């Protein structure tokens, strides 16, 4: 019996993935539980394993964007089945088993009907389009795979191509390129590099805009003494065994934020339609850049966990992020985010809320400063805090009160007990 290889849904919001590579050429034998293909979403990489032993028959070439539940290939039990597959699912000029990773234009248009909609214009790899539509697409260098068809049975017709050509932002040549030779002017801009907005960049691009476009964001900034936190961290780290994970400022911050959120539940909420949903759980994410763009792994139920546990989990998440093995569920479903720019010498800034959460805390560097205390100038380590929140649902005073609770715990970590 032929086994289908389909794209798994790795998380609630996952719709598509990039088929990075096939591990086997057509007709090669794969063992059961052996990796047969590698896919990558905007957040994670995932190895698809073959459920059975058999002969691999890739249908979708590596480098293509694929939809959840789409069939990308088959496993045949024997040569006879393979021959039938070749007849039923002919693959043009053989599927390319591996392709360069970042081929521009690999992004699939989400408005295109999913391959699982049998009425859609994409049945496997065969794109149903009228000869005229094909000719026009070729002429304008349009990828038919990205064009939703409106003809009978989802067929791509002339009108669909006309629509794309008429849309100014689409692939139609921008009028500027036809303007009388702008490159001849010494003031004209020339392109040094064109970076396609896609993959993780596209997700960040959309999320940032969505966040600022949706919420009324207000940032409150303050500065607190980091002395108590420093002492607390040193004391604990000094008594830890060498093989135990040392606690980080981030771990302390996550715990402090989680406890402050428990006292100010409104800050731990999201807007859903006409409702403000205040979450029972407190899942604090820590924004980090491990070289592939911004990701925000979460510490779930951070308010119930010890700082030691939080530190340990953070360490594991960072390791996974570096190895690109984070699961989608470790990345989504947070209720609050912390972002730290201290390492780059930043004090105050205006973080953007990680939508659909409603608040984010920005941490600055810890720096020694002269500070007036009891009418005397003393040298004290200080840390800047920048709290951005959605002013539609959190008023200024409650926001400030949350920050106040937080600063007290940072200055006196014993309050966390």
């Amino acid at each position, binding site marked *: 019996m032929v086994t289908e290889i389909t794209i798994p849904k790795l998380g609630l919001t996952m719709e598509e993935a990039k088929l990075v590579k096939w591990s086997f050429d057509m007709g090669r034998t794969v063992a059961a539980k052996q990796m047969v293909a590698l896919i990558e979403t905007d957040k994670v990489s995932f190895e698809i394993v073959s459920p059975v032993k058999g002969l691999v028959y890739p249908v979708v070439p590596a480098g293509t964007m694929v939809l959840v539940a789409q069939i990308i290939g088959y496993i045949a039990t024997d040569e006879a089945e393979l021959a039938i597959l070749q007849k039923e699912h002919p693959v043009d000029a053989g599927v390319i088993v591996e392709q360069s990773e970042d081929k521009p234009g690999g992004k699939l248009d989400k408005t295109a009907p999913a391959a699982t909609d049998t009425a859609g214009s994409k049945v496997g790899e065969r794109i149903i389009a009228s*000869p*005229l*539509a094909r*000719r026009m697409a070729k*002429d304008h260098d349009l990828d038919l795979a990205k064009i939703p068809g409106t003809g009978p049975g989802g067929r791509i017709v*002339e009108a669909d191509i006309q629509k794309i050509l008429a849309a100014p932002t689409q692939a139609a040549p921008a009028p500027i390129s036809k303007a009388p030779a702008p490159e001849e002017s010494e003031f004209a801009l020339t392109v040094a590099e064109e970076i396609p907005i896609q993959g993780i960049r596209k997700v960040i691009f959309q999320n940032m805009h969505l966040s600022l476009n949706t919420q009324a964001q207000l940032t409150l900034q303050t500065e607190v003494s980091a002395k108590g936190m420093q002492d607390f961290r040193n004391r604990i780290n000094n008594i830890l065994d060498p093989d135990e994970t040392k606690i980080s400022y981030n771990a302390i911050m996550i715990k402090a934020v989680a406890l402050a959120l428990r006292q100010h539940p409104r800050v731990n909420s999201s807007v859903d339609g006409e409702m403000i949903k205040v979450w029972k759980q407190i899942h604090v994410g820590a924004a980090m850049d491990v070289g592939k763009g911004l990701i925000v792994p979460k510490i779930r139920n951070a308010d119930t966990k010890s700082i030691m546990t939080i530190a340990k989990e953070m360490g594991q998440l960072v390791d996974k992020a570096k190895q690109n093995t984070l699961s989608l569920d470790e990345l989504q479903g947070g209720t609050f985010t912390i972002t730290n720019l201290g390492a780059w010498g930043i004090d105050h800034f205006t973080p953007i809320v990680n939508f659909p959460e409603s608040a984010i805390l920005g941490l600055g560097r810890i720096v020694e400063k002269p500070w007036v205390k009891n009418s005397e100038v003393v040298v004290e380590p200080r840390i800047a805090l920048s709290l951005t929140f959605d002013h539609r649902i959190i008023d200024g005073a409650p926001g400030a009160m949350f920050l106040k609770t937080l600063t007290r715990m940072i200055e006196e970590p014993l309050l966390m007990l």
Partner: protein
Amino acid sequence: MYDVIIIGGGPGGYAAAIRSAQLDAGVALVETDIIGGTCVNRGCIPIKVWLRAADTLRRIQGAGDFGIRAKVEGIDFQTIVERKNGVSSDIRMGMEALLGNYGVEVLKGRGVFKSPGEIDINGAVYQAKKYIIATGSRMAVPDIPGLKDALLTTDQALDLQNLPASILIYGAGPIEVEMATIFCRFGSKVTLAAQTRRLLPREDQDSSQRLAQALRDEGVTLFLGQKLESVKPVGNEFICSLSGSKNPTITVEKVLCAPRLPNTQNLGLENAGILLDEDGSVRADDFLQTSVEGIYAIGDVVGHTMQSHAASAMAITAAENAMGQSKLFSFNLVPRGAWSFPEVASVGLTEEEAENQDLDVTVGEFPYAINGLAMSVNEMKGSVKVVFDERYGKILGVHIVGPNANELIGEAVVAMQFEYTVAELAAGIRVHPTFSENVVDAARDALGWALYLPKR
């Protein structure tokens, strides 16, 4: 309350009724007269019977070319009329039976809108969720002094037992061309005059010219670009004065005149708020909805191509839309046809229309004269012309003059419907020898590689 009430039981209303019923509508069809409309009772079908008689005569007269020596002893027009009536009534009975079969209620009388939601039929008020206006068109004889006395309508012509010795046919549309073809073949001296400068003015110029030549060959005298000014009786005949460059007068026994106007009067359209276009037809959008939501209009009453197949095609779209779908009607895919000897048929843009749209127009053409079947059967008049846009090879229009043109145009309709480029058409295979090879050859000529034409 009905789901759909259809006003008019011609080919449009009939098709709309059945399609609506197929979609589970409760349907009523309102008809003042008999089912079948102009097409079945006074138009397409009766004329085809007459044309078949004329064509049979034509073939007998040309039989000598094939060694068949035959003599026509006489023409029994009564048999033609009876056959015509028989065919019409057979079709009409079939339609009535099918309407009953689909549970369509036929309401006899004139349907008049009282409001957008109510219709009056013989004093009784009916309501429907949706309405489809399919009232067709009527004769509109122009107001020309003296014309009334000389007038022969097509209705009368189709029932003639004796044909006039001479006749002036005034107009250059498909009906006039077909009537000229029939009268001429049965021995009437036919003069065809029209205000337009060419026959079938809606068609490609080449088609008009080919048809004009063919009619002249048949013996029809043409006066184009001439207006009929007056008709005066002289004994049993009439002197018809034409104005125009040639300024002739013609003496004939009868004058046939058949212009048609959309049937929009006495329907209470104003009570429903339904707007008309400048040409007097009911305004309908691409969904065939009138200016009033839920009221659709199809067929001759909306103008465009006033032919039966346009009405029945619109009927499907209107019925589906009335039943909740949203289908666009492809006006550009409605073919046009005229049954002369040879036939004329077309779909899409003429070369001139395409030029006026600023398209990069190229044409391909292939004459019947070098088609194997045409030569074998001695039917060599005509040509297939493909008009296409050079840029993408999009087929803009196809124009056929020649035997079976009205069948052949179906090839072009399919090609355009599925958006073939001229290259797909050129790559086709047809049985040899057939007239359909001409379509493929014209497409090849369009691409510059017609195999059976001299090197370009």
